[in-house]
C-alpha cells in the first residue's frame, strides 16, 4: 500500500512504533532476585503502590514512586532491562513514610516490579507495565 508522507504522518498516531513485544527475557533472574530479597518466603499480591506512567515520554528518564505502609524496605526491578535491579529503598526509624520517588531508565516496554518487606517480616509485591516508545524524528 502506498502512503504519501502526509498520510503516513496522519496515520502515525503513536501506534506505529510502539514496541509491544516485551523487551528482554530476564524473567528468570527477576524471580531469583525476588527470592534473594525474600529468602524464599511467600509474597502477597498488593499492599505496595507503584506509580509509573502508562507511556513513558522517554525511556531515559521515567519518574516512578513506590509506597507500602509500614514497609521496612522496597526493592524495585525492571524486568526488561539488561540487568533488572533498579534500587532498594531502606527506610530508617526517622522515615516519615515508607515511600520514595525517583527517576529511572527503562530500555523498552516492560514490567516494573516493586517488592516490599513489611515490618512484620512478610512480603508484598506489585508490578506495572510501562510502555516505552520509539520516537519519530525528535526521538
Amino acid at each position, binding site marked *: 500500500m502506498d502512503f504519501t508522507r502526509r498520510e503516513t504522518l496522519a*496515520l*502515525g498516531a*503513536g*501506534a506505529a512504533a510502539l514496541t509491544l513485544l516485551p523487551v528482554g527475557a530476564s524473567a528468570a533472574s527477576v524471580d531469583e532476585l525476588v527470592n534473594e530479597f525474600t529468602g524464599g518466603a511467600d509474597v502477597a499480591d498488593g499492599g505496595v503502590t507503584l506509580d509509573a506512567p502508562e*507511556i513513558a515520554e522517554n525511556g531515559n528518564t521515567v*519518574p516512578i514512586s513506590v509506597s507500602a505502609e509500614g514497609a521496612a524496605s522496597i526493592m524495585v526491578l525492571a524486568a526488561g532491562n539488561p540487568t533488572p535491579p533498579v534500587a532498594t529503598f531502606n527506610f530508617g526509624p526517622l522515615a516519615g513514610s515508607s515511600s520514595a520517588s525517583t527517576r529511572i531508565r527503562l530500555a523498552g516496554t516492560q514490567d516494573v516490579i516493586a517488592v516490599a518487606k513489611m515490618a512484620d517480616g512478610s512480603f508484598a509485591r506489585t508490578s506495572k507495565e510501562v510502555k516505552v516508545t520509539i520516537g519519530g524524528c525528535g526521538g
Partner: protein
Amino acid sequence: MKFKTMTAAATLALMTPAAVAADPDAKLVINGQIELTTETEAPEHLDRMRTIRSGWTFRTEDTQVLQMDDFDNPAMIYVDEARDAWYATEGAADQSCASCHEDPESLEGLRAQLPKWNEEAGKVYTAEMYVNECRTERMEAEPWGWDSQEMKNMTALISSVSRGETVDVQIDGPVRETWERGKEIYYSRYGQLELSCATCHEDNYDNYIRADHLSQGQINGFPTYRLKQANLVSMHNRFNGCIRDTRGVPYEVGSDDFVALELYVASRGNGLSVEGPAVRN
C-alpha cells in the same frame, strides 16, 4: 501473550493520545511565582496559523510538572554551574562576566529579544555569539564551542533570568534580510525524505510521527533539557538533528544559515513567554 509489531502502513492508533497528553487547560507557573504564557494568538507575520503554542503544551503531564519547580527541573543544575562560571575570573584580562555585568539578573529581558541585530558587527547575533565576543574581546579568554557544556550552561542561565518575559523578536529593519533567509529555510524541503520544518511543525503539529507528539517547533524553551540526552540541547543542535533526520546534509551549528533560521523561528513565537531552560522529551 503474543503481540504483533505494528507497521506504519497498517495501523490505527492503539493508544489514545488523550490518555497521556496533558490537560489542554493546564497552566505553567514556575515555583508558584512566574506565570508563563504557553498559548496565544499567532503574531501578525504568521498568516498560516491562528494560535501558537509552546512545546510545553505537547508533553505528557509527567514531563510538564518537571518544569514547574526549579528543584525538579533538571536543567537548573546546569544553570547553577553557569552561575559559578559567571563569577569566575578567566582569560588574560583577568575579568569575569560579573566584572562588567554584575549579577546574571542584570540580563533580564535580553533573551526575549534574541537573536537580534548587532550594529557594530553588522549582523544578527545570538546569545552564543554575544558570550563569545565578550570572552574573546573583553576577557581575552578562549571562545566556547557553540555546543560545549559551558556555552549551553551559560545560555541556559541567560534564558532563565528572562523567564516569563514575552518573546518579542525584531523582524524589520536591518534584520529583515536575515529573517527572510530564515523563512526560506523553514519552508524548504530537505533530505531524502523531502521534509521542511513546516511539514511537521506547521502542517502536522499535534499529530504523531511514529510515537513522537509533534509540537509547533517553537524555541522559547531553549536551551532545553531533553530527557533523551539527559542534558541541555541548543537550538542549532536541534535544527541540525531535525535536518539530519530528513536524511539530508544539515547546516552547521553556528552557521549563518542557522542563525537566520533561529531568528525566523524565534519570531514565530512572538507572544509566548520565555521558558528556557525547559524540559522536553
